[in-house]
């Protein structure tokens, strides 16, 4: 009991700054992307329009119509919320930072995830974690419940498509350094639901640039065998090529499923990545 309580306490202690950080990031983005002002399913009044043939008589707003000779229909604003599934990689490789970075990759991933969720919730969307048993939340309180759920999200393996509603949107945040086949399986399974989505690769600057020098013994974070590189300078170019190949593979997998793909480095400001995600998730709003 005590262990659970302690962990909850530790989680709670981490929650507020994360939430605040997410809120702050979201507030700066909100002004750039406009709201969804159009007719649709919803509770709030949007406009009256003249009755045209074919409209159901039940939809006539008799109070408005009584003030004139014509019949009017009352239209409400479209409020049909989209469900967005969010996932971040919580494996050991994400819980690492190099000396040049300001924080671990998983921290940046969670900030982005919660900031995105904050934006989405403020937009009235339904947000859930891509995990077995994940529940959709909405409203401002939903962010805290999401953050609580996020702490419980181990996320050590790529997620399955279980429980995702059809035509939902998915955002996967992780370093995606594993084999491309596993990623392809994951994305393929989701795309088959069908679910569209976005993949964001979060990389540490050291992973992007391989800044080491001399003779270095590298240890993995997830039980990989260690390897000694006699001269790191000598393999830097080859490593860059490998990384580009991995990213090209990810982009190809995403494109094949109709998904988006982006790369973010932890030494870059998170706002740019958030903006990119937002724009990617709201293409209609941009097109309106």
């Amino acid at each position, binding site marked *: 009991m005590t262990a659970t309580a302690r962990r909850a306490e530790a989680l709670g202690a981490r929650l507020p700054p994360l939430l605040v950080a997410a809120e702050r990031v979201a507030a700066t983005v909100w002004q750039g992307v406009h709201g969804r002002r159009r007719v649709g399913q919803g509770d709030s009044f949007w406009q009256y329009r003249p009755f045209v043939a074919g409209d159901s008589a039940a939809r006539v707003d008799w109070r408005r119509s009584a003030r004139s000779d014509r019949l009017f229909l009352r239209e409400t604003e479209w409020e049909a919320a989209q469900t967005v599934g969010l996932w971040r990689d919580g494996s050991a490789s994400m819980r690492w930072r190099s000396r040049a970075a300001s924080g671990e990759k998983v921290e940046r991933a969670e900030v982005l995830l919660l900031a995105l969720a904050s934006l989405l919730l403020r937009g009235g969307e339904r947000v859930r974690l891509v995990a077995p048993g994940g529940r959709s939340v909405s409203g401002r309180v939903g962010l805290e419940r999401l953050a609580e759920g996020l702490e419980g999200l181990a996320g050590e393996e790529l997620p399955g498509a279980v429980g995702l509603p059809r035509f939902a949107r998915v955002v996967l945040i992780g370093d995606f350094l594993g084999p491309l086949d596993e990623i392809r399986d994951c994305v393929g399974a989701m795309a088959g639901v069908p679910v569209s989505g976005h993949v964001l690769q979060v990389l540490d600057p050291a992973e992007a640039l391989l800044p080491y020098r001399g003779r270095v013994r590298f*240890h993995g974070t997830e039980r990989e065998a260690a390897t000694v*590189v006699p001269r790191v300078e000598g393999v830097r170019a080859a490593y860059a090529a490998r990384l580009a190949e991995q990213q090209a593979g990810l982009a190809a997998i995403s494109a094949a499923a109709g998904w988006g793909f982006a790369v973010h480095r932890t030494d870059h400001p998170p706002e740019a990545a958030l903006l990119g995600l937002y724009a990617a998730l709201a293409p209609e709003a941009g097109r309106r």
Partner: protein
Amino acid sequence: MIFAAPWVLLALTALPLLWWLLRITPPAPRSEVFPAIRLLLGLAAVEETPARTPWWLLALRMAAAGLIIVGLARPILDAGAGLAGSGPLLLVVDDGWASAADWGPRMQAADGVLDRAERAGRRVALLATAADASGDAPAASVVMPVAEARARLAALRPKPWPVDRALAAAALRRWGERGSAVYLADGLTDGAGWDGFAQALRAVGPVVELRDAVAPARLLLPPKAEADRLVVRLAQVPRAVADRAAVLAQSGDGRSLARVELQFAPGQGVAEAALKLPPELRNRLTRLVLAGPASAGGVALLDERWRRRPVGLLAGDETVADIPLSGPLYYIKRALAPYAELREGSLTQLLSRQLSVLVLADRVVAAGPEQDAIEKWVEQGGLLLRFAGPRLAEHPDGLLPVTLLGGDRQLGGAMSWSKPAELAPFAAESPFAGLAVPAEVKVHQQVLARPDAQLAGHTWARLSDGTPLVTEAVRGAGRIVLFHVTANADWSDLPLSGLFVQMLRRMVDLSVGVSGAEDASGVKLAPVETLDGFGQPGAPPPVAGALTAAELARALPSPRHPPGLYGPESGRRVLNLATHLGVPVAAAEIGGARQERLGAAAPERALAPWLIAAALALLAVDLLVSLRLRGLFRASIAAGMVLMLGMGGAQAALNPDTNPALVTRLAYLVTGDARLDGISKAGLEGLSEQVNQRTNAVLAAPAPVVPGEDDLSFYPLIYWPISADQPAQSGAAVAALNDYMAHGGIIVIDTRNGGSGEGFAAGADAALPRIAAGLAIPPLAPLTPQHVLAHSFYLLQDFPGRYTGATVWVQRDQDRSNDSVSPVIIGGHDWAAAWAVDADGRNPYATIPGGARQRVIAYRFGVNLVMYALTGNYKGDQVHVPAILERLGQ
């Protein structure tokens, strides 16, 4: 520089191999965690030339390896020359008194010899030339390895007796082995047998002689006692240059009472200097010590013989003897009292104790037991000093140096034509020789000796007409001296003159010391305290034996009779090393021996430990550098180490000298009067010293405080002397003092005019109300012996300072909030002056009415005061302890 293990240097040839090995071995990789390792896995093939160990790291490691190799080869700096000869080495060490002064360098030199013997792989035998402490004659030890000899050598100590050349020569001849010898000489012949010793030493084999060019040993000869001074004599081997030395005269508790400088002219062997001391100080002297290195030769012990002589006084008519200006003993007492111990009483009383001089002033000795007793005493060495007078002129007795003519002779009287006679100058052989004869001394009347052939020989002083004034005769070991005039001014002006004092002192000086009279007795004197080779007194060794006084006077120091104190406390005798030793004589260098100077060569220094340490330091640097290269040594760790080192420096900022919160100290209020503040400061310093000595409290130097400016809360006690012209305290100061008193502080206000000191500080009483206006002084009551202050440390009945007798005032009512501690104590005893101690440790202010007791009680009051300030009513509470214990028991 030599190498003790040169073959190790061969390993230096392996250094290039090491270089090559280090060069081809890549440096250990740094360790890095890297999540994207999967992308790196196949990339090893792209490798180019492997990283090499940097050249400077290689150089560092090569230097460390080189240092270790050179260090293991054991280089030795300033190594001495090799030892001649082969076979066992005989190390002959002079360990008599003469070697003590430079014993350290001698042992160092002997160690150096053993080092050389060890390097040469030779075994060593040891021969100390003085008899050892158990009285065994010198003998060579068995031949043993150097390590064992080293232990033996370390156990060797200088002896307080001379070396025995003859027995040492015999031991050398008995030493069967033939090898070589090293002789650590003290440079003195030390009595007979030097030539035989040198010959026996040469017979052993090649000899190396280690000695100083001139023997440094100095011998403090027993001082010569004169009437008012000791003549200190110091002997040494004559040197070519002038030299000087200092001798300290010490009392029984080891304090130096005087210091006397001695000058040696070039080539002079004995220097003398007079040590003049007041009699009371001279009586406390127990030893003379040569300043400089400790040695038995530099210590001369003193016993009763160097003390002053007791003088017995006896007058013909006891009733008038002490009448001022006319009594017969009046002038004698005044003349001798500063220089001698005077005793009075009946004849039997006087003779029952040891006596040097017996003065009979116009006292006729009755024939029979009285005369026999005096005669016996004189024959044992006493000096009988007689003065003539009417009685003696009528009844000459048997104890006179010359036969007297009946009656007395008057000069210059009303019925006489002759003039009063003057004194003739003293003859050269007279003990009074050299004394100036004042012209105004006239002799009106005297007794006359019967002229005969021997009279001139018995005469020490004459009148100008040739008649004897002072005559003497030797009786046995003693002497009888007669002044032909009275001891008062009836017959002559002599007792009125300074000459009389000088003559009497010469007389007393002639007498022997009192303990000399016991020499004839057969009582054995046991050793009580003996000196070791360094002149330090200690318990006598087990073999030391008793000897009679006569034997003691002749004894030469030896293991059985080491120099020191012998006999019971009442009649302590000393046996001095130098009494029969004579002036030290320099020994010639041993012919054919290689000469080396003691202390000329620097001692050998082994470099190996330093080289190995340097190598280890380099390796430590290498370790840090390697850690840095592998990424295990973080800047944060280094910063932490630097920070920890810096912590030490940070603590230095808390200086107890300037920060009053760190130590307890008393305080005095700065009055502005420099003299008054000086007394307060000196007084509290003296009191703090007393408190530190006598109690567990530790007080630092007292602090001057200005209320209102300084924070008073650190001080348990503030002393405030009042003077008439002191300005009143300002409002802030009064507020600070009131706050101080309200929070447990104690202010001692001293008007310095109480009791016996009334009138000393005029106007202080009037000034007190003006100065202390505004102070919240509670109702006061006299301080009684029942008050806690009177038994907080000592039990006190009164509370004196420099003055005594006035009332001291304390708070009347018990104030539970303040632990019943009186916040103010007012008195007028000038306590600070009583406590004051000047730079020389003396008390500059006399107590009034006076006495050491008053000062002691003043200090006790001060200690009580401090204890009261520090512990509050703790002592007052202690009276309840039995009741509390009883209640706890129930």
